[in-house]
């Protein structure tokens, strides 16, 4: 990993905040640190969910990640 764990967390959050769509696949975060192993990126993204900074969004067959504020707004819009 080129970035430290905290730097990678910050990069993932920035990507989730600025991406055009609120839900992102785990692969979308790989570019945050191209030197990091996919499993490390996955573990850090899941840590962010545990910390309440990100949320899972699942279609049932696929699971994506999202910022709570952005995804809650999106969900409410569809109700």
């Amino acid at each position, binding site marked *: 990993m080129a970035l430290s764990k905290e730097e990678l967390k910050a990069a993932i959050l920035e990507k989730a905040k600025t991406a055009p769509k609120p839900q992102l*696949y*785990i*692969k979308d975060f*790989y570019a945050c640190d191209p030197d990091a*192993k*996919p*499993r490390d990126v*996955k573990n850090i993204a*899941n840590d962010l*969910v*545990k910390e309440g900074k990100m*949320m*899972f*969004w*699942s*279609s*049932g*067959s*696929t*699971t994506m990640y*999202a910022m709570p504020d952005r*995804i*809650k707004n999106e*969900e409410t819009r*569809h109700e």
Partner: protein
Amino acid sequence: MPKHDTPMLDELEKGPWPSFVTDIKRQAAQSPQCWDILGQLELSFKDKITHWKHGGIVGVFGYGGGIVGRYSDVPKQFPGVAHFHTVRLAQPSGMYYSTKKMRAICDLWQKYGSGMTNMHGSTGDLVLLGTTTDQLEPMFYEMTHDLNQDLGGSGSNLRTPSCCLGMSRCEWSCYDTQALCHFLTMHYQDEIHRPAFPYKFKFKFSGCPNDCVAAIARSDFAVIGTWKDDIRIDQAAVKGYMKGDFKANAGAHSGRDWGKFNIQTEVVDLCPTGCMWMEGETLKIDNANCTRCMHCINVMPRALRPGVETGATICVGAKAPILDGAQFATMTIPFMKIDAESEYSDVVDAIEKIWDWWMEVGKNRERVGETIQRVGLPTFLTVMGVDILPQHIREPRSNPYVFWKEEEVEGGWTRDVKEFRKRNAQ
């Protein structure tokens, strides 16, 4: 009293077969929201389109799987199913559980959900149909604390591993499927409960090539029991079958008179590789050419048994989707010893090689079998560190499955071919 008119659904109650419409009506007496399922389904039949929306942020804290959000797109018309989430419970290995446990699960679901279930889902989970978001956390607490029961997998997670009855009831099982299934379920708890992959990933474990859990057709990683040595033959029992002392297929097809058992037409002639023959009353098998189809063993279980040097074949990349084409798994590792003492280290190594590669190379929503198809089998086998065998190829005599790498060619790709031909003229 029915809440909606459902003339089209009512037609489905008229045949001689069990009707899910009758079942739902019966359940609606206790759970009135079930009337709205019927009303919405009738509307879907009329409109010829589903009125379910699925997906969302529902789940229980710390878990990224096990609950599938489901909503009605006509909630004002059918408020009872405005939110109708599905909960998947992990099944025990081999699906052994007591009626007491089943009643407790049903009572739990009557309390927190619609009371409707699907036993079992195609991955094997105990599927509980229909609850609202506010019921999820209390239901999860009671389920884990009082019933000692966990959620299964969904989304881009490892799905709930599933296995056949294995050695608990079957003499053909070549390894302990339940032990391996349980071990990997516990070993990969994080992958089952939190998303890890580009798409879903399924393990299935069958004890013998009869493959009773259809691992080869439905799982990304199929572990199918096999043997390395010779089929064990009891020639006295072979003669017994020929004389009619024992029923073929252990009497499984005895509901009809099939005439006298004929070993030539019912066993020898049906061997797919033609590796069996009779010498007088002695059955002979050329074991090197046996493909483990199990037909002869199934027909004469008293006379034939799998060998004693047992293990499993690893097949990778099946999928059975509704919308796209189904695909069988590809035989990847012909034989692997399934060793509990080493904590199944060979199986774990193979799984993690696949995951590390697929997480990097696989596209979003691409099953590992589709990734293999896209990049080619030779690339995948190189990743797995497996030497390519003719058995990896459907038609090895006509398919040029050997591909040279640049470093294996003298002078590489830039060598002077004309010069080479001068010395190696054909």
